[in-house]
């Protein structure tokens, strides 16, 4: 057993960064994730592990500091909330193209625009469909508990480094602000300079004859297409190997409730209430939003009367659910927007309105 603590999601996220052996954090304050940089500043990770933290002048600068530092082969992370993540998109596209591993956490607040500081899930499309320009994907992990905020930081770096790609943690303001019991993994030492990946990272040439360089630029379309094909091949490998989801009560289920992150937890409660009333309800929660767990939805589609998708947005993941079931079953959606969180009772009531009456 690791160390048990009661922590806010944002603080747990910050503590996990230090423990995973991060070399640097660059970020800019924005509600509802400002506790990340505050916690790091309080902890002084330089004295704990030698980890650098820096409050950048903007999210634009922060993501580009991440690119520079991660381009040296170091473990680097940034966090922000929706408007800040929008500002980072150019840099994220560059990193996806140049195959720079890093982790970015979005503690979503309600949009569009300056919106609200209350929790939301309205950045699903932005995270999952490639929020910046060009054909690229991020591996997207959706934590639903404070414990997963911790676990996903570790897993995020493992995936980022395995596939040389940016990974996004897609949380929301509620997970960031709430406190739960977490088990923390023991400190992982930071990489030594001798362990930095000499085949691509800009560490200084050292003994190499030829420089390493990192760019996403290729003027020749033939060459740029080749790079695109390479990226797409990588994404197919990720789709084949890295899908994660959680499912319960699928056996004999007539209906499936589905959602991600905080939405999935409320769905689970709604399903419990529904089962108590005699409905046969199973729940599917994608943990990786990309790669999306297509197969499990497709599998259950022919066995159930319908899938009820609940999100804190206007209906984003539901499009992927519909693609996954390819018309084999009825898919309906219920959502709240702008920082409103649906209650379990509200979900069940709407399920009954749509599917039962």
């Amino acid at each position, binding site marked *: 057993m690791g160390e048990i603590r009661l922590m806010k999601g944002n603080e747990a996220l910050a503590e996990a960064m230090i423990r995973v052996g991060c070399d640097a954090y660059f970020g800019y304050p924005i509600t509802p994730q400002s506790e990340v940089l505050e916690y790091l500043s309080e902890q002084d990770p330089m004295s704990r592990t030698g980890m650098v933290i820096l409050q950048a002048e903007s999210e634009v600068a922060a993501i580009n500091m991440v690119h520079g530092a991660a381009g040296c082969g170091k473990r680097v992370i940034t966090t922000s909330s929706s408007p800040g993540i929008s500002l980072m998109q150019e840099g994220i596209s560059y990193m996806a193209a140049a195959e720079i591993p890093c982790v970015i956490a979005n503690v979503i607040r309600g949009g569009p625009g300056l919106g609200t500081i209350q929790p939301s899930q309205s950045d699903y499309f932005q995270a999952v469909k490639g929020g910046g320009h060009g054909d690229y994907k991020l591996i997207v992990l959706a934590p639903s508990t404070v414990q997963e905020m911790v676990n996903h930081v570790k897993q995020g770096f493992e995936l980022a480094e395995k596939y040389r790609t940016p990974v996004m943690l897609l949380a929301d303001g509620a997970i960031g*602000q709430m406190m739960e019991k977490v088990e923390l993994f023991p400190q992982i030492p930071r990489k030594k300079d001798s362990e930095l990946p000499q085949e691509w990272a800009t560490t200084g040439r050292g003994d190499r004859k030829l420089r390493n360089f990192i760019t996403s630029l290729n003027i020749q379309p033939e060459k740029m297409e080749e790079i695109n094909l390479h990226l797409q091949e990588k994404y197919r490998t990720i789709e084949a190997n890295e899908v994660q989801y959680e499912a319960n009560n699928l056996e004999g289920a007539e209906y499936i409730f589905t959602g991600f992150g905080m939405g999935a937890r409320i769905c689970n409660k709604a399903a419990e209430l529904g089962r108590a009333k005699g409905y046969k309800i199973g729940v599917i929660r994608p943990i990786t939003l990309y790669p999306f767990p297509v197969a499990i939805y497709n599998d259950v589609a022919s066995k159930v009367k319908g899938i009820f998708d609940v999100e804190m947005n206007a209906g984003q993941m539901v499009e992927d659910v519909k693609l996954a079931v390819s018309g084999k079953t009825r898919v309906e959606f219920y959502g709240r927007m702008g920082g409103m969180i649906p209650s379990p009772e509200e979900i069940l009531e709407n399920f009954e309105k749509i599917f039962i009456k």
Partner: protein
Amino acid sequence: MTEEVIFAGFGGQGVLSMGQILAYAGMMEGKEVCWMPSYGPEMRGGTANCNVIVSDEPIVSPIISTYDTVVALNQPSLDKFESRIKPGGTLIYETSTVTNPPTRTDIKVIPISANETALELGNQKVFNMVVLGAFLAERKTISDEGLEKGLKQALPERHHKLIPLNMTAFAKGKEFVK
């Protein structure tokens, strides 16, 4: 055992911290706990509230809309949350800030004057412990020892000298429940 409670009142009444102390205490007793604040501009002078769930089971949803217990420390909180108490549940309210008392008869209602008690003890800051005393006397979610352990976790080291006073306040709070 699962206890779903909301603490609601003015910002500055220690609403968020009384929830945190309860959550810490639950953790120290090996229970599953979740503390969910309302946050943002509400924290600055307006109303503030937090949900706490303490359970022997893993907590499915941190989002709840009905409560076993509502602790209302001002009139707006009472107005907002009285209707959301599960039948047979508990309502604790602070008499000094409430002019229109609750009307429901299918719940247990416990008026407290924690403000006065805290003033008698000479430290307004132990108000939250008086409230917690009343809460735990009625809803025996956590043992007194567990609560003291939770308080130690929740309080920064430099305030630990105040623990005896806090526990006195806690004991005084318990007296509101007959």
